[in-house]
């Protein structure tokens, strides 16, 4: 998993989705419906991470229910510190890469 996946944008709000309780297809559907249009690219993979890891790094996960009730932001980054890159690297180390196995996420 590349650390760049978890590098926050200049706003300091890294967009994520809470996926607890969802089945695989529902997780991929979130990506197709709400992430792909923003990136203007198809979703091919995702990074799964327990939010405990973010809290352990001194970060927070704040619900931001737009464009979807499950949308959240990882916040609390010190954007002027070189620690941000290390935090992103540690989140990446704890995350699990899940590849899309079919165009719509069906197993």
């Amino acid at each position, binding site marked *: 998993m590349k*650390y760049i996946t978890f*590098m926050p*944008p*200049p*706003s300091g709000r890294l967009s994520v989705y809470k996926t607890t309780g969802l089945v695989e297809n529902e997780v991929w559907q979130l990506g197709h419906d709400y992430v792909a249009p*923003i990136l203007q690219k198809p979703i091919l993979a995702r990074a799964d991470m327990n939010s405990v890891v973010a809290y352990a790094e001194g970060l927070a996960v704040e619900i931001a229910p737009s464009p979807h009730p499950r949308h959240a932001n990882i916040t609390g980054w010190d954007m002027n510190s070189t620690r941000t890159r*290390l935090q992103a*690297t540690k989140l990446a*180390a704890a995350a699990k890469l899940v590849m899309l196995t079919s165009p719509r996420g069906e197993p």
Partner: protein
Amino acid sequence: MTAIVASSPYFSCLSALVPIQSGVSDAALKISQILTKTAVELIRSATGQAKIADPLSSLDRLFEECSAENWDGEGAAAIPYQAFEEAERLVYALPSFVPPPDVLPEPIGAVAFEWYRNQRYTYVLSVKGSHSVEFAGLFGPGDEIHGKANFDGCLPAMVAEHLRTFFHQ
């Protein structure tokens, strides 16, 4: 006058391409020309292709894709031209034992080089055109580092030390 070329553990022959010439004598000019020729030949070789030409090619591609605001659709800052210049100098300044890095754009408007051995061993260098290089690394469980060093085209000693540790040199 005697012209002396001393070897250095960090010298990779490639810094000759960086437009720095410390001497003004005929001998210094001659040495500079020889080093430049050697560096060009090395870049044309298979090793040079992987270590130099491929990262430079990646930088060209990133410049095309990431030099405008919001290049990722999520509010990323434009990566300034100076960051690419600095990244190019960093490519030339890397020690010869270092394999080619993955060249990545950072949403804060910087260019990063990443070396990934596994989840617990990762090292990242990042430049944004501010005459400094930022680093972050995981060197195994509980062993981590981050910080910043001045960068004027010569690899900072502490970064060279990190790379030696990371690659067991």
